[in-house]
């Protein structure tokens, strides 16, 4: 009898637990009407929220469509696909895993890039390990969580580590200490963000889109400088044996459309669309300041004060010909590379070495212009220390055109020393056509 009473008690507990859950599910997604078509979509876990919203919109526009998602680490999804798991669409967090799915013979059409993403460092909101910069992650005792080998976000983390190892301010010692701090390698990126949001881990590397509204108040985001970061690209494709290939293609078309892209950008993804640049450059509206715009994700406005406070300045001793006289001076300013990194260039990751077909148009307040090719400032190529200077021989620059001046140390003539810099615009060379 006692047992029955206990059983009854347990059933009541269970019922209390289930009522709100049932109420929630009945309001959230009404059952799709039977007889409609269905889609099974394998998608990288970082896409969870954006794809759920896109699916809701798509179902509203295509009544009777039933969409089932299988979210997971892209490498896990590829393993499932190559073992024959039924799917209509595969959306991967990098090209490597899409290529693996193609190699396994599971991809029908040509994959297209539909979104881009960036790596960020997250720490719990109360930041128990006092992490302020990328440097602090390697401090001893930091509990660092990353994704497992093969998961795209780990590949991007490794790319970052390679760049950090090559940089003298970090170096191999940093990477060694970084690796020693890893306490767990999670199966997918959302497990990483969950462990940081729970406060169990001190830091983790995730995509900026993983800082969803659910966890935004529980974590703090620390940006990774563009010098070390890479833009993650997300390819999508219909599988080779989709029972609903036409509907699957329709879903992909919707994602590529303005509406679909709007949902993705609302979840902090970077749209794959690179907007065309106007034929003119717009000079900074405020005197004494310069704008950084064009094909960048994060347009900036620079002033002498912001150059001093937001960046690390360097001093270069230069000599150049102006007319027939040789001018020798020492300029203090910020490397153009650091400024462009902060502006986050929006390169097309699908085009090989796309960055090398871009250039910077530097315009002075008087309309004087000079061009710097991307390869000139990129450390992988010429890597020249071109400066956006604000001091000459220790004194503020007093050019009539303005207080900011471009300094190109290796130039023989001073022609590209643009005075009164008002705009720096990243542009792409015209595309080739037959």
């Amino acid at each position: 009898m006692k047992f029955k009473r206990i059983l009854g008690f347990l059933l009541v507990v269970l019922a209390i637990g289930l009522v709100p859950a049932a109420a929630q599910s009945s309001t959230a997604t009404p059952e799709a009407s039977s007889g409609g078509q269905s889609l099974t979509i394998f998608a990288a876990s970082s896409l969870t929220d954006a794809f759920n919203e896109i699916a809701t919109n798509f179902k509203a526009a295509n009544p009777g469509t039933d969409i089932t998602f299988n979210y997971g680490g892209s490498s896990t999804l590829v393993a499932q696909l190559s073992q024959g798991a039924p799917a209509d669409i595969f959306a991967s967090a990098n090209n490597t895993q899409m290529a693996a799915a193609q190699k396994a013979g599971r991809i029908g059409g040509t994959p297209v890039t539909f979104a881009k993403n960036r790596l960020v460092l997250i720490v719990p909101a109360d930041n128990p390990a006092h992490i302020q910069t990328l440097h602090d992650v390697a401090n001893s005792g930091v509990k660092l969580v990353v994704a497992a080998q093969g998961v795209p976000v780990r590949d991007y983390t490794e790319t970052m580590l390679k760049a950090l190892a090559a940089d003298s301010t970090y170096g191999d010692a940093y990477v060694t200490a970084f690796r020693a701090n890893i306490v767990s390698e999670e199966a997918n990126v959302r497990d990483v963000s969950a462990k940081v949001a729970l406060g169990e881990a001190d830091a983790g590397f995730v995509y900026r889109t993983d800082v969803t509204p659910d966890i935004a108040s529980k974590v703090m985001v620390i940006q990774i400088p563009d010098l070390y970061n890479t833009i993650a690209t997300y390819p999508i494709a219909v599988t080779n044996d989709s029972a609903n290939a036409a509907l699957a293609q329709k879903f992909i078309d919707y994602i590529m459309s303005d509406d679909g892209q709007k949902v993705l950008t609302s979840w902090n993804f970077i749209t794959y669309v690179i907007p065309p640049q106007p034929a003119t450059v717009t000079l900074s509206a405020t005197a004494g300041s310069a704008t950084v715009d064009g094909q960048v994700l994060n347009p900036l406005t620079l002033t002498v004060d912001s150059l001093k406070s937001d960046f690390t300045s360097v001093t270069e001793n230069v000599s150049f010909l102006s007319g027939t006289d040789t001018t020798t001076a020492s300029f203090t300013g910020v490397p153009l590379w650091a400024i462009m990194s902060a502006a986050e260039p929006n390169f097309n990751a699908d085009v090989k070495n796309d960055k090398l077909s871009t250039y910077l148009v530097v315009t002075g307040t008087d309309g004087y212009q000079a061009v710097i090719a991307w390869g000139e400032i990129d450390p992988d190529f010429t890597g020249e220390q071109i400066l956006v200077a604000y001091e000459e021989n220790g004194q503020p620059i007093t050019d009539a055109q303005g207080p900011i001046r471009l300094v190109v140390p290796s130039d023989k003539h001073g022609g590209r020393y643009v005075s009164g810099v008002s705009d720096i615009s990243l542009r792409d060379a015209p595309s080739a056509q037959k």
Partner: protein
Amino acid sequence: MLRLRRSKTAAVDGGARTLPLARWLIGALAALALAFLILPIFGLIGVAVSSQAWDEAPALAIVQAIVLSFATTSITALVTVILGTPLAYVFARWRFPLRRLLNILIELPIVLPPAVAGLGLLVTLGRRGVFGGELYALGISLPFTTAAVVVAQTFVSAPFYVRSAQVGFQGVPREIEDAARVDGASSFTLFRRITLPLASRSLIAGLVLSWARALGEFGATVLFAGSLQGRTQTMPLLIYNIFDSDINAAVWAGVILVGMALLALLISMWLRRDDTLT
């Protein structure tokens, strides 16, 4: 009621009245069930042999995972015996209020999804858990440590031992104990010389089962302890981690686990040879 039904079935089964068709059906279903239960294991072994999976297996990771699995499950077994034996004895012999309810709660981890177990451990013993602050004050931070693996394994596997040990203690005839007590045996001597030896087979069988369960622990470990080679990555976690990059290696690691689990099962069955059907 239950016994009645069973005896009736037995009568039908044993008699010649059983229809040939029914026999066929039962036989076919049994064959299907048998195939379903053993084929995946043979599939695993077959694939491992045909692809020569051991050639490509990341030797170091597998060796580290085996060592870690053995070390953690051994400690788990030790903790289980030290804490589980008194618990089983108390529940087998003492009478106190809420005993039956508590007994159900003890066995709950057996049927609980391991992920729920891991979540429970995380919100209780994690850094931000109910007792996280107290543990931290003592300088203890469990998540992501090998200790967390042991905690997770003990939580999900100890009930198997406790249940079996309880049955064992209950099976020791009171008369023998009473006789020993009459002969002047102290409580401790009684337990050590009479109760323990008589219950030992159940104890060991339960321990082997709980060890096998600890060996296969995955869900609670991955949530509570994370996964790091050499520190928290036990065999099941290794398999999950490498199956998407190198399925052959995962298969090979799986075959090793199958062998270990089979061994545990055989030991357990041998110990209980009188209780079970041969």
